[in-house]
């Protein structure tokens, strides 16, 4: 359980904590100025960013790929949903923690037979899992509520928060901002944990597993355990993100988590930049405002948004972007920083002088 300890490591945690805290507070301040609609979109984006981060860890750091993270989202969402449905007064932190644990356990169940599988086998196996989740949720009606799904209201805005708002739409505005702030804080905490994991002993070992598994084994890394734990962490993040996502919507239904969502997650990860924190943030932002983007494209091209073409515009744009990014810029939007860095780097002459002596 090395990775568990690494989540609260002491040496360099401090600076990362300050950085994450700064970014979280900055985003919270931004939510004050955003309109309520944008706030709720941002909340959904923050939930998705957590899932994308988990997937990014799996793919970027351990070299595995999963098409099952929409399934793990569903597992976490149903775990939280079933609990919140029966125990409405549970603190949110506990519900989310439950989703994290249940998501991780479901990841473990899928991972143990899959650790023998590499690349395409693992992708296919996880695809089979996420394909099975929707019918399972539809079939076990007594627990999941079947097609209709479950409804709950765990994100009720606290009284003290309402005081900041006035006017005829105070309640709605307050609720939108409360959910956005909550989602941003949860995402901040999860990003902080993942930042530590990236820079821990486990993170370094994981990169070695990805790049050269024989060398990793010679260094004493247990390959099967490393791959399994990477998978479990990824599934736990997906479970928590899925739970947060459905808590924001105050309901969970089988068709919230289609296979297509796994493709969307993959797209967001690749677009942002595989294996990076900022890539996952970019992915979340893209998701949050994708509907606006698509509406913009629809109005630019003159496509009727409620027509067939308009309704499927998002799917087409996302998949084309995924293919193009993978073919021409596999490191994603984050890799744009390299040309920028080169621009601001010290002059070649002075660097050459340094190298001489």
């Amino acid at each position, binding site marked *: 359980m090395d990775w568990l300890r690494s989540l609260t490591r002491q040496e360099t945690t401090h600076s990362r904590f300050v950085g994450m805290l700064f970014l979280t507070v900055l985003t919270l301040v931004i939510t004050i100025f955003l309109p309520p609609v944008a706030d709720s979109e941002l909340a959904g984006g923050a939930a998705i960013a957590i899932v994308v981060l988990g997937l990014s860890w799996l793919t970027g750091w351990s070299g595995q790929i999963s098409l099952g993270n929409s399934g793990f989202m569903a597992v976490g969402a149903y775990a939280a949903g079933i609990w919140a449905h029966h125990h409405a007064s549970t603190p949110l932190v506990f519900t989310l923690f439950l989703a994290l644990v249940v998501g991780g356990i479901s990841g473990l169940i899928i991972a143990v037979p899959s650790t023998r599988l590499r690349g395409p086998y693992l992708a296919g196996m996880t695809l089979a*899992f996420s394909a099975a989740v929707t019918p399972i949720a539809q079939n076990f009606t007594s627990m999941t509520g079947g097609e209709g799904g479950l409804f709950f209201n765990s994100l009720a805005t606290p009284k003290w928060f309402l005081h900041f708002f006035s006017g005829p739409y105070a309640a709605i505005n307050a609720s939108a901002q409360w959910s956005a702030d909550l989602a941003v804080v949860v995402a901040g905490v999860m990003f902080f944990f993942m930042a530590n994991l990236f820079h821990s002993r486990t993170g370094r070992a994981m990169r070695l597993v990805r790049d050269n598994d024989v060398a990793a084994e010679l260094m004493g890394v247990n390959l099967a355990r490393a791959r399994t734990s990477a998978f479990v962490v990824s599934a736990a993040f997906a479970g928590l993100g899925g739970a947060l996502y459905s808590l924001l919507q105050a309901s969970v239904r089988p068709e919230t988590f289609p296979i297509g969502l796994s493709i969307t997650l993959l797209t967001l990860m690749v677009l942002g930049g595989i294996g990076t924190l900022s890539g996952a943030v970019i992915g979340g932002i893209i998701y949050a405002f994708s509907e606006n983007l698509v509406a913009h494209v629809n109005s630019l091209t003159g496509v009727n948004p409620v027509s067939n073409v308009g309704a499927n515009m998002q799917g087409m744009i996302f998949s084309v972007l995924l*293919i193009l990014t993978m073919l021409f810029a596999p490191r994603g939007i984050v890799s744009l920083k390299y040309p920028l860095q080169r621009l601001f780097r010290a002059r070649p002459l002075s660097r050459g002088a340094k190298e001489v002596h």
Partner: protein
Amino acid sequence: MHNIFAGLSQGIIYSLVALSLVIIWQSTHVLNFAQGAMAMIATYIGMTEIDRGVGYWWCVIISVMVGMALGGVTERVLIRPLYGKPEINPIVVMVGFLGFLEALAAAIWTSTTRNIAEPFSQIYFKSNGHLVFLSSFVIFQIVLAIVIMLSVAALFRFTKLGLQLRASALAPEVSRLLGVRVSRMLTIGWILSAGVGAIAAVIIASGNFGLFPTNMDGIFVASFIAAAVGGLESPLGAVAGGLIIGLGEQFILAYWSPDVAPLGGIIILVIALMIRPQGLFTKTTIRRV
């Protein structure tokens, strides 16, 4: 008895799609996640020709031709730039292609289920007043699938093209030295595979299942499991795997619980992997990690 026929007729579809996956895997070591979607698009194009008044058999031929063309173009445009890259890259690209084709089909033809009028009756035969659980459509389905499999086998076994295909899959460098145009062989592998997939999709669209943009998702998953049970390397294993999955799903549905049926394929795959991780029908040694 009913379960055996139903399982076999479903399983042979899985076998066909699994066979098409194995052909691609053997030639280019890519698991084509868009295989089902490509076949779906080909079937839609064939179906629009039926709407224009051509007969069923023309629809089959058009679908297969379109499917083959799509397979060849896909290999040239999407897969060729990715040879030698990490194995995740082609997976991601093909998953993206899957998403694109499904969104495209929904945009053009809507998501409502359509049916291609089947060429043969689906009503079960009766003998001495008992249902036999076989219809002429089921027989057509099984016979067509077997004919396709045998012709693919014959192509690989007895023709010069088949020999070149096998050679470039087994030892690309040596084949290139001996004058086989390996890159062309890879494209031909994709064309063949997409054609086989398109036939399976047409059969599915002709039956009760119908045609809708995501109709091949479940089939693809089951066929992938079938190919994985067989070991991904072996065409014979793919066919056997398909039949095993078809029968297994049917028996789980009939004797255990319909609620767990969606998990049936995964359960079978896990059991098969525990028995023989390298696949039930493969001779190659597993990569030790």
